[in-house]
């Protein structure tokens, strides 16, 4: 108990980071499973959220109103970007998945460069709304209230994603499209619309994750790529196409990052790599594989 009371902050940081990673990775993995598109622009989406937070919510102080406005803007912008990407991949569908991955790669470069042009190369801070910018007393020491709020919100989002995918008929259609697209089409469902809506939802989640991460990590040019990398590792560890696996993987990587950076900053990235290597070597299908195997 003594260790816990001195290091609980590390664990909480890890949980907060893991939940943000989950919001990134779950969209990536569902898009990958459904469309066979690896959306390499997902990291750029995350950056968009962070910079929108800096611009709308504010750098030094944010009110609840401005933060809520930023949140709504992020959801709208994310959905619009998702639909736009889906439309842009349409001409390439006949040319295979590689060309679509290359397109998202090119768009990732364009979006992140555009953000640099608009916001400059300096790092920016993003303010937490209202009194969440203060600290609360927890187990006898101070802890940033905002991170607790992120944990709560992250849990709500994770539960929401799980409920929608597993318990609603819309989610059932999404899962069915992942496992057997022709059969869904044969049932008279417009698969294109399902895929566009999924892409929009996944993009909105990534942009919102960027906004929520803003008050913790700030807005800078490198965060998109870094988060994309961690999300990819999460997917490999958890199992492609599996929501539960993604959550588990995100928690593992989040905790490993926050504890590792504190204990051995030089070795933290080796740890990430090591975890991926171990899973690939001994359990290539991931820790919790999807029930319907997704082609790799």
């Amino acid at each position, binding site marked *: 108990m003594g260790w816990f009371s001195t290091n609980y902050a590390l664990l909480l940081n890890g949980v907060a980071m893991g939940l943000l990673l989950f919001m990134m990775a779950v969209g990536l993995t569902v898009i990958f499973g459904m469309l066979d598109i690896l959306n390499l622009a997902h990291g750029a989406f995350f950056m968009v959220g962070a910079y929108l937070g800096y611009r709308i919510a504010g750098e030094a102080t944010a009110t609840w109103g401005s933060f809520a406005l930023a949140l709504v803007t992020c959801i709208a912008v994310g959905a619009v970007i998702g639909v736009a990407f889906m439309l842009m991949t349409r001409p390439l569908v006949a040319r295979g998945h*590689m060309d679509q991955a290359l397109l998202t790669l090119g*768009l990732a470069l*364009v979006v992140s*460069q555009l953000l640099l042009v608009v916001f400059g190369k300096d790092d920016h801070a993003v303010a937490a709304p209202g009194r969440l910018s203060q600290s609360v007393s927890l187990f006898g020491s101070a802890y940033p209230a905002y991170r607790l709020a992120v944990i709560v919100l992250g849990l709500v989002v994770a539960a929401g994603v799980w409920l929608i995918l597993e318990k609603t008929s819309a989610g059932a259609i999404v899962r069915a499209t992942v496992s057997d697209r022709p059969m869904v089409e044969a049932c008279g469902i417009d698969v294109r619309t399902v895929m566009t809506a999924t892409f929009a939802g996944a993009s909105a989640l990534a942009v919102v994750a960027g906004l929520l991460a803003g008050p913790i990590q700030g807005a800078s040019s490198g965060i998109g790529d870094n988060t994309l990398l961690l999300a*990819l590792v999460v997917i490999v560890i958890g199992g492609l196409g599996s929501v539960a696996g993604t959550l588990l993987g995100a928690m593992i990587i989040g905790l490993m990052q926050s504890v590792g950076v504190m204990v051995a900053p*030089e070795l933290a990235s080796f740890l990430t790599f090591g975890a991926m290597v171990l899973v690939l070597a001994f359990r290539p299908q991931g820790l919790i594989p999807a029930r319907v195997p997704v082609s790799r």
Partner: protein
Amino acid sequence: MKWSFAGNRLTPTLTVSAVVVLAILPLVGLSAYNVTILTDFLAYALLAMSINLVAGHAGLLTMAHPAYAGVAAYAVVLLSLHVTQDGVLQLLAALVAGAAAAAATGWITARATKVYFLMLSLAIGEILYVIAVQWRPVTHGSDGLSTYSGMEFFGSGPVVLSGFIYWAALIVFAVLALATVVLTRSPFGSALRGIRDNEARMRSLGYPTARYKYFGWVFSGAVAGGAGWLLVAQQPRLVSPDDMSFQMAGLLLLAVVIGGTGSMWGSCLGAGVLVVMNEVVSQHLNGNGPLVLGIIFVVAVYALPKGIAGIRFRRAERSGGTHTPPGPPEDPTPSGHVEQKREVEAS
């Protein structure tokens, strides 16, 4: 293998003339700064060729190779800072470092294909990048690592004049590029293309496909290591994590694909576009070269399904295809086959 890989009869002539022109350039009044940029071009062209070797001929689209080149560049600078100024030893170290980095991470070639492979290679490249940023005691983090000692060749004094370094770089480039092309023309190269097109069939023919892919991967890692040596050949000999970043990996992979996967000439052209945009044109665009480059690449993904190397091929087809196209593509025919095959698979 029913395709002949003799290549175009014009290609050797064209290649030799190109190398001669490149060798003469410093003598005709090119500024030291431009010679440095030209050396950078050689580095990126060689790196693009190493990517093309696995991406075009083995079907393994990679975003890890710039990181291998970066590992080699760090090895060279560390060697210069702590051990020796011998240029040949530094080159050997770069080749070994590139090959070792590829060998240590190359098992992914046996674990995945296609898009999942792209994802794994990106993860490996990014992890090496993060290590370069975070392992400050060795790499000095994002500031990068630099040395000002010139290389010594065969007992010469430290060579610091950019023209002489450029010639040494050109020799290294030519030798490694030739080795890469020879490998693609060899039976081994044909086997790689066979694996790319139909791995199950090659395996049932008795080819140890996993070993072939792994060897091709390690060889291309060594070539990427050579490119890493070229990157830090010119003064100031600086390597920074930016050389291994997601952006660099993405731009290079796109340059290879836009050049035309499978065509080594296309890769050099793609790398040329990259260097010209980033280092020359960018100054006239308020430093927005990478943005314009990204837009060019996005447009090219739509407009050039077979890359620059495919343009001439299509024109020759339209005119009846009786004469050999006068262009540099080594042999567009098989890539044409493959594209059609891939379309069938995708639909």
